[in-house]
C-alpha cells in the first residue's frame, strides 16, 4: 500500500464525513440491533442457568399419593443419576385475613437434609427466612402487600379439609419477603382446594407441619449444569434417563409401602370386621331373648286384661238387660197409670154429666123459689103499700094512735101474716072509721089473695120438682163415692208398682256403680301392665340402639379405615421435572420468541445499509472519476485504486460495527429483559452473553455488502480507459418520463416539479433506498404502535367489553346450585351489586380431532345462561354478532378454536374423558382459554349437574373503598373463601403492558434512527450531486425557500411513497410479530387502531421534516461560486 494512497483515503474520509458517517451509522444500526436483540435470548438463558445454579433448582420433584418416609428418601438418593435429595412438606391452605381471601401454598423452608446441599434455595429480598414456629416468609409478588411484622392467619379449614390438625399453629408473623426459583413467572400453578388456583406461595419452618410423612421430595441430577445446559437436548435426555431410573425406584418403594402398610392395614380392618361380626351376633342374640320375654309378658298381659274385660262386659250386659227390663216395667206402669186415669176420668165425666143435669134442674127450682120469694115480697110490699097508702089518705087529725097502730101494722107485715095484719088493720080501722077504708083493704086483700094463690101454685111446683130431684142426687152422690173408692184402690196399686220399679232401679244403679269400680280397677291394672311393658321395651330399645350405635361406630371406623385405604387407590409416585414448574417452559419459549423477532427486524437494517452503501459509494466513485483516471494514468494497479474505495467503505462498516456492538449489545438485551422481567421473578439484571454466531454473521453481512457494493461500482468505472475517465462524465441525459405524455397535467407543473419527477425515475437505486428505508421506518413504527394496540386491547376489550363482572366470589367448596341459595340471595339483595351469575369453573384439557391443548383452558359452566351473558359478552369478534349458550353444545374462545383448528359445528372433546360436544360458536376473548357451557349442556355431556364454586358479580361504582367494604363483608361469611376484583388483574396487566411499552419505545427510536440516517444520506448525496444545479438556481435569484423546495420535493414524494409502502409492510410485520410473541394464554388484539396508522405516518413525516430542516442550512450554505467551476 502506497503511502500517498493512504493519505488520500484518509483525506477523502475527512472531506466526506457526512457520507462516511451515514454508512457507519446504518451499519451500526443494522449490526447493533441484530446482534443486540440476538444476544438477548442467550443472555436471558444464561441468566436463567446461573440463577437456577445459584439457587440449586431441583431437577426432579417427586410427589406420592401417600407421602414419603426416610426409606423412600434413601432409595431416591441411591438411584443412579441422582445427586442430592431433599424431602420437604407443602400444604395448600386459604387465608381470609387480608383484604381478599386467597389460596396459599405453604412450603417448608428449604433446609439442609443430611449431607446434601439445600435444594430450591430462596432469594431473600427483605427480612429473613422463617426459623421457628409461627414465622412465615411471603413471596415478593404478594398481592395483598403484607409487610414484615404483619400478622397472617390461616383458615382452620379449606373446603372440607381440616388444616388445624396439620399445622402446629395458624397464626403467623411475616418475617421475610422472598422469591423462589420454582416460581419464576406470575403463574402459581393449580391445587385441588378453593377455586383450583394457587394465588401465592409462602414458606414456613418445616417444624410447623404436623404431618407424619413428607409430602414432597426434591432431587438434583449428579451432572453439573455447567457441563450440561438445562436448556439443551442433552439435559432433556438425561432427565428422561433418570426419570426411568426413578420410576424403577418408585415401583420398588410403592411395593414396599403396599407390603408394610396397606396389607397390614387391610388385615387389621378385616380382623376388626370379623370381631365386630361376632360381637354383633352375640349382642343380637341377647337382644332377641329380651325381646321374646317382652313379647311373652305382653301376651300374658293381653289375656289377663281381656278376661277381666270380658267379665266387665257381661256384667255390663246384665245391667243393661236389667235396665231394659226396668224401663219396660216403667213404661208398662206408665201405661196402666194412663188406663187407670182414663177409666176414672170417664167415670167421673159421666158422673159430672149427671151432676150437671141435676144442677140445671136444681137451678130451675131455684128460679121458681126466687119467683116465689119475689111474689112473697110483692105480697109484703103490697100490704105495706096498702097500709102506707091508707095512712096517707087518713084525714087530718086522725089520732096518733091510729097512725102508730097503722105504722106498727105496716112494719109488722110479713108474708105469712100479711092477710092477717091487713085484716086486723081493716078491722081496726073499720073500727075507728067505721069501715071507710074497708074497701081499700079488701082490694088489697084481693090482690094478696091472688098472690097467695100464685105462691101456693109455685110452692106446689117446687115441692114437686124437689121431690123428683132428690133420688137423682142420691144416686149421683153414691156414684161419686164409688168412684172415689175405686180411684183410691187403683192409686194404691200403682204406688205399689212404682215402689217396686224404684227398688229395681236402685239395685241396677248399685250394680252399675260396682261395675264402674271394677272397670277403673281394670284400667289401672292395664295402664300399670302397659307401663311395665313399655319400660321393658324402652330398656330393650335403648339397649338395642346403644348396641347398634356402638356397632355402626365401629363399622364406620372400619369403613373409614377401609375408605382411607381405598382412597389411597393405586399407590403412585409422580415424578415431575422442571418443565412442570409454573412458568418454567414459558420462559424458554419467550426467549425463543425474542429470537424470532430478532431475526426479522435487522433484515431491514441490513438491506437499507446495503442500499445506503451502494448509493454513497456510487456517488463517491463517480466524484473521484478523474482521480481514478489520474491514478490509473500514473500506473497504479486497479487493485490499489479499488482498495481505496473498499477501504473507505469497509472502515466505515468496521467503525459502524464497533459502534453498533458497543452501543446496542450492552443495552438492548437489558431493555428487552427489563420488559420481560416484569413477568418473571428472577435476577433483576442479566449478564450479556453475546451471540457469537450472530455477531460474525452480522459483521460478515455488513462487510460483505459494503465491500461487494464498492467493488461493483469501482469495477464499472475501472473498465474505462484513463483518458475517458479524466474527461468529465457526460451527465446522465435527461429523459422523458411517462408522466409527460399527460400533457395537460405536465404543463401545469412548474420546473421544480418536473425536475423532481424526472429525478425520481432517473436515480432508481436512490428511489429504492429511500422508499425501503422510509417504508422500513414506517413499518417498524406501525408494528410498534400496532403491538401497543394489540396488547392494550387485551386489557381494554377483555375487561371493559367482554368481562363485565368486576368481582369474583369463591365459595368454601364446590357444591350443587341448590346449596348456594343463601349466598346468592345475599348477593341479590346487596344494592352494591348490579347483577351476578353462578359459575362452575375448572381447569381442563381440550382436544379436537387434530390437536389438543392441555393447559390454561377453563371449562366455565353457567347455571343461568341469561345472567351469565349479562356478565360475559359472547360475540363474534369481526361481526360483533352476539352469541348465546344453549343446551346443544359449547361456545369456545377464539384462541382455543385456532389452536385446535375448530370451526362452528365441529366436535370438541372435553377433559381427560374426552366427552364429546359440538362447537356452537366461537367468541371473542383475549385472556385465557374458555369452554363455555350452559348447565343443561353440561348435563347432556356429563350426565350430571355441575358443582359450583364461583360467583361472578358486577358491582356499581367499584372503587378501592367499596372493594374493601365488600371484601370484609363477604369474607365474614362461612360460605365464602375468597373475593377478588378484576381491578387487581387489570392493574397487573397494565403493569405488564407498561413494560412492553419500553420495547415499543426502542422500536420507535430505532425506526426513527433508520429514517433519519436514510433521509440524511439521501439528501446529502442529492445535494452533493446537484451542487452546481443548486448554485446555479441561486445565482438565478431563487429564494432559499424555493431552492430548498427544489431539493425537498423529491424527499417528500419519496417519503410519501415510503410511508404508503411501509404501512402495508407494517401490517404484515405486525401480524408476524404478534403471532410470534403471542402466548397460549393470551390472544393479542387483532387490529391496529387507525390512530396508529396516522401516528406511524406522521412520525415518519416528522423525521423526514427534521432531516429536511437540518438540510436547509446545508442548502443555504452552498456557495454560488460553485456554479462557476467547471464540471468535474
Amino acid at each position, binding site marked *: 500500500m502506497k503511502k500517498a494512497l493512504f493519505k488520500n483515503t484518509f483525506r477523502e474520509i475527512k472531506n466526506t464525513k457526512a457520507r462516511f458517517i451515514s454508512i457507519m451509522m446504518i451499519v451500526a444500526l443494522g449490526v447493533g440491533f441484530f446482534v443486540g436483540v440476538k444476544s438477548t435470548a442467550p443472555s436471558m438463558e444464561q441468566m436463567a442457568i446461573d440463577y437456577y445454579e445459584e439457587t440449586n433448582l431441583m431437577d426432579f420433584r417427586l410427589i406420592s399419593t401417600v407421602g414419603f418416609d426416610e426409606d423412600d428418601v434413601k432409595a431416591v438418593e441411591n438411584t443412579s443419576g441422582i445427586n442430592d435429595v431433599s424431602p420437604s412438606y407443602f400444604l395448600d391452605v386459604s387465608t381470609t385475613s387480608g383484604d381478599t381471601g386467597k389460596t396459599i401454598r405453604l412450603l417448608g423452608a428449604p433446609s439442609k437434609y443430611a449431607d446434601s446441599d439445600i435444594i430450591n434455595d430462596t432469594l431473600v429480598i427483605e427480612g429473613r427466612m422463617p426459623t421457628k414456629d409461627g414465622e412465615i416468609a411471603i413471596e415478593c409478588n404478594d398481592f395483598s402487600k403484607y409487610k414484615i411484622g404483619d400478622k397472617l392467619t390461616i383458615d382452620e379449614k379449606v373446603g372440607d379439609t381440616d388444616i388445624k390438625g396439620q399445622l402446629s399453629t395458624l397464626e403467623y408473623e411475616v418475617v421475610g419477603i422472598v422469591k423462589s426459583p420454582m416460581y419464576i413467572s406470575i403463574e402459581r400453578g393449580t391445587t385441588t382446594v378453593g377455586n383450583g388456583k394457587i394465588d401465592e406461595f409462602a414458606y414456613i419452618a418445616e417444624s410447623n407441619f404436623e404431618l407424619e410423612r413428607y409430602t414432597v421430595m426434591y432431587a438434583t441430577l449428579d451432572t453439573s449444569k455447567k457441563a450440561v445446559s438445562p436448556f439443551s437436548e442433552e439435559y432433556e435426555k438425561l432427565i428422561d434417563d433418570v426419570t426411568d431410573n426413578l420410576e424403577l425406584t418408585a415401583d420398588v418403594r410403592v411395593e414396599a409401602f403396599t407390603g408394610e402398610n396397606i396389607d397390614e392395614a387391610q388385615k387389621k380392618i378385616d380382623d376388626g370386621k370379623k370381631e365386630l361380626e361376632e360381637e354383633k351376633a352375640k349382642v343380637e342374640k341377647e337382644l332377641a331373648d329380651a325381646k321374646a320375654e317382652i313379647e311373652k309378658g305382653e301376651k300374658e298381659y293381653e289375656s289377663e286384661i281381656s278376661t277381666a274385660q270380658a267379665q266387665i262386659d257381661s256384667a255390663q250386659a246384665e245391667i243393661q238387660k236389667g235396665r231394659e227390663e226396668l224401663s219396660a216395667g216403667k213404661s208398662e206402669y206408665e201405661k196402666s197409670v194412663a188406663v187407670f186415669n182414663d177409666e176414672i176420668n170417664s167415670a167421673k165425666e159421666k158422673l159430672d154429666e149427671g151432676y150437671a143435669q141435676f144442677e140445671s134442674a136444681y137451678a130451675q127450682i131455684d128460679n121458681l123459689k126466687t119467683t116465689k120469694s119475689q111474689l112473697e115480697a110483692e105480697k109484703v110490699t103490697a100490704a105495706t103499700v096498702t097500709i102506707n097508702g091508707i095512712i096517707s089518705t087518713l084525714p087530718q087529725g086522725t089520732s096518733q094512735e091510729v097512725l102508730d097502730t097503722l105504722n106498727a101494722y105496716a112494719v109488722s107485715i110479713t108474708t105469712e101474716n100479711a092477710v092477717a095484719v091487713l085484716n086486723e088493720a081493716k078491722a081496726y080501722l073499720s073500727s075507728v072509721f067505721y069501715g071507710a077504708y074497708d074497701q081499700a083493704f079488701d082490694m088489697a086483700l084481693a090482690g094478696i089473695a091472688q098472690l097467695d094463690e100464685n105462691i101456693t101454685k109455685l110452692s106446689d111446683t117446687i115441692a114437686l120438682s124437689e121431690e123428683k130431684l132428690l133420688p137423682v142426687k142420691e144416686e149421683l152422690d153414691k156414684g161419686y163415692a164409688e168412684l172415689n173408692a175405686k180411684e183410691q184402690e187403683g192409686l194404691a196399686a200403682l204406688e205399689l208398682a212404682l215402689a217396686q220399679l224404684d227398688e229395681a232401679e236402685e239395685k241396677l244403679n248399685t250394680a252399675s256403680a260396682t261395675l264402674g269400680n271394677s272397670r277403673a280397677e281394670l284400667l289401672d291394672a292395664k295402664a300399670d301392665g302397659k307401663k311395665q311393658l313399655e319400660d321393658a321395651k324402652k330398656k330393650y330399645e335403648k339397649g338395642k340402639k346403644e348396641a347398634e350405635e356402638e356397632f355402626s361406630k365401629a363399622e364406620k371406623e372400619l369403613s373409614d379405615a377401609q375408605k382411607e385405604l381405598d382412597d389411597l387407590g393405586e399407590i403412585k409416585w409422580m415424578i415431575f421435572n422442571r418443565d412442570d414448574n409454573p412458568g418454567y417452559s414459558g420462559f424458554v419459549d419467550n426467549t425463543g420468541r425474542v429470537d424470532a423477532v430478532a431475526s426479522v427486524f435487522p433484515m431491514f437494517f441490513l438491506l437499507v445499509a446495503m442500499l445506503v452503501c451502494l448509493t454513497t459509494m456510487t456517488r463517491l466513485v463517480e466524484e473521484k472519476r478523474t482521480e481514478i483516471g489520474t491514478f490509473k494514468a500514473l500506473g497504479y494497479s486497479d487493485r490499489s485504486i479499488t482498495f481505496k474505495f473498499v477501504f473507505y467503505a469497509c472502515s466505515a462498516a468496521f467503525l459502524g460495527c464497533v459502534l453498533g456492538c458497543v452501543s446496542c449489545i450492552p443495552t438492548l438485551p437489558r431493555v428487552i429483559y427489563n420488559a420481560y422481567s416484569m413477568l418473571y421473578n428472577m435476577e433483576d439484571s442479566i449478564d450479556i452473553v453475546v451471540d457469537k454466531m450472530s455477531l460474525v454473521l452480522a459483521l460478515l453481512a455488513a462487510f460483505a455488502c459494503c465491500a461487494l457494493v464498492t467493488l461493483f461500482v469501482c469495477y464499472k468505472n475501472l473498465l474505462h480507459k484513463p483518458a475517458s475517465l479524466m474527461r468529465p462524465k457526460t451527465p446522465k441525459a435527461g429523459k422523458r418520463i411517462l408522466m409527460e405524455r399527460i400533457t395537460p397535467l405536465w404543463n401545469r407543473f412548474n420546473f421544480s416539479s418536473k425536475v423532481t419527477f424526472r429525478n425520481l425515475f432517473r436515480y432508481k437505486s436512490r428511489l429504492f433506498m429511500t422508499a425501503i428505508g422510509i417504508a422500513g421506518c414506517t413499518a417498524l413504527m406501525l408494528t410498534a404502535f400496532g403491538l401497543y394496540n394489540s396488547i392494550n386491547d387485551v386489557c381494554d376489550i377483555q375487561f371493559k367489553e367482554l368481562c363485565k363482572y368486576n368481582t369474583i366470589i369463591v365459595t368454601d367448596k364446590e357444591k350443587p346450585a341448590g346449596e348456594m341459595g343463601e349466598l346468592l340471595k345475599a348477593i341479590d339483595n346487596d344494592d352494591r351489586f348490579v347483577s351476578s351469575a353462578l359459575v362452575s369453573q375448572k381447569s381442563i384439557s381440550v382436544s379436537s380431532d387434530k390437536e389438543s391443548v392441555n393447559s390454561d383452558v377453563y371449562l366455565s359452566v353457567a347455571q343461568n345462561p341469561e345472567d351469565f351473558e349479562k356478565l360475559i359478552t359472547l360475540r363474534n369478534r369481526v361481526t360483533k354478532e352476539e352469541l348465546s349458550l344453549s343446551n346443544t353444545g359449547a361456545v369456545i374462545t377464539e384462541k382455543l378454536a385456532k389452536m385446535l383448528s375448530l370451526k362452528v359445528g365441529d366436535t370438541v372433546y372435553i377433559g381427560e374423558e374426552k366427552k364429546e360436544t359440538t362447537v356452537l360458536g366461537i367468541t371473542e376473548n383475549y385472556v385465557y382459554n374458555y369452554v363455555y357451557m350452559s348447565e343443561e349442556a353440561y348435563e347432556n355431556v356429563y350426565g350430571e349437574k355441575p358443582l359450583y364454586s364461583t360467583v361472578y358479580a358486577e358491582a356499581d361504582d367499584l372503587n378501592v373503598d367499596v372493594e374493601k367494604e365488600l371484601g370484609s363483608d363477604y369474607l365474614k361469611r362461612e360460605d365464602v373463601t375468597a373475593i377478588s376484583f378484576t381491578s387487581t388483574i387489570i392493574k397487573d396487566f397494565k403493569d405488564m403492558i407498561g413494560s412492553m411499552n419500553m420495547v415499543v419505545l426502542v422500536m420507535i427510536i430505532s425506526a426513527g434512527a433508520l429514517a433519519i440516517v436514510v433521509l440524511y444520506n439521501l439528501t446529502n448525496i442529492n445535494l452533493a450531486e446537484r451542487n452546481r444545479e443548486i448554485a446555479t*438556481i441561486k445565482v*438565478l*435569484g431563487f429564494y432559499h425557500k424555493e431552492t430548498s423546495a427544489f431539493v425537498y420535493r423529491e424527499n417528500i414524494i419519496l417519503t410519501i411513497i415510503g410511508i404508503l409502502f411501509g404501512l402495508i409492510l407494517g401490517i404484515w410485520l405486525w401480524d408476524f410479530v404478534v403471532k410470534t410473541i403471542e402466548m397460549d394464554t393470551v390472544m393479542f388484539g387483532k387490529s391496529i387502531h387507525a390512530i396508529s396508522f396516522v401516528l406511524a405516518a406522521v412520525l415518519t413525516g416528522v423525521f423526514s421534516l427534521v432531516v429536511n430542516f437540518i438540510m436547509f442550512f446545508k442548502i443555504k450554505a452552498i456557495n454560488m461560486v460553485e456554479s462557476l467551476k467547471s464540471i468535474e
Partner: protein
Amino acid sequence: MSLVEFKNVYKQYKMGEVTINAVDGISFNIEEGEFAVVVGSSGAGKTTVLNILGGMDSATKGEVFVDNKNITKLNDKSLIDYRRFDIGFVFQFYNLIPNLTAKENVELATQISKNPLDCETALESVGLIERKDNFPAQLSGGEQQRVSIARALAKRPKLLLCDEPTGALDYNTGKAILKLLQNTCREEKMTVVLITHNQAITPMADRVIRMKSGKVIENRINENPMNVDDIEW
C-alpha cells in the same frame, strides 16, 4: 449617473495572518447600454468583480452602485431580489439543468421574473426555437450556451453578466455567441458585462476594463467598437 459604479472596492481574504486583497481598491463605472469587457489574466481579480457585481459575493470595503442601488449594503433577501430581477447571468459552462429541456430551462428564469419575455421568443432570439424540447445533453456546447443566454435574457435583466461565455467553446461557436451578445446589446439596448482573459475580444467592446493583481489598470471607452465578425484571434 452610470448604471454600474464601483467606488474604491476591496475584497479581502484572510488566510491566517496574511490578508490577501483579491480586489484592491478598484473604482470604475459602466454606462447603460454599453458592452463592457473586463479583461485580465488568471488571478487578476476579474471573477471577484463578477461575483460582487452578480450579487454572489460581497465586497469587504467600498461601494458598488447598480442603477443607483448600493448593492454592498443589501441584506441577503434583497441581494436575492437583486439577482432575481436585475441580473442575467451567462456561465462559462452554461449551467443548464440537465433534467430540464431547453424551453424548461428558460422557464426556470421566466417563472421567477416579474415581467419576463415569452420563453419561446427568447429561444427564437437565440435561434434555437426548433430545439426547445431537447435536453441539454442532446445539444452542442454552442447551443447550450445559447439556451443559457436565452435564459438570462428572458428575465429582462438590467445587466447581463457573462463569465467567459466562449471559454468552453470552439472558435467559431465562440464567435457566434459573442455576436449574439453584441447584437443583443445593440438591438435590445442591454448592458452587457463580459469577463474574459482573452485580449482579442476587447476590440468589440464599448468599454474595456483591464485588471491586474486586483487593480484596474485601464478603463477606456472604445470609440469604434468592431463587429465580432471582423475580429480574429
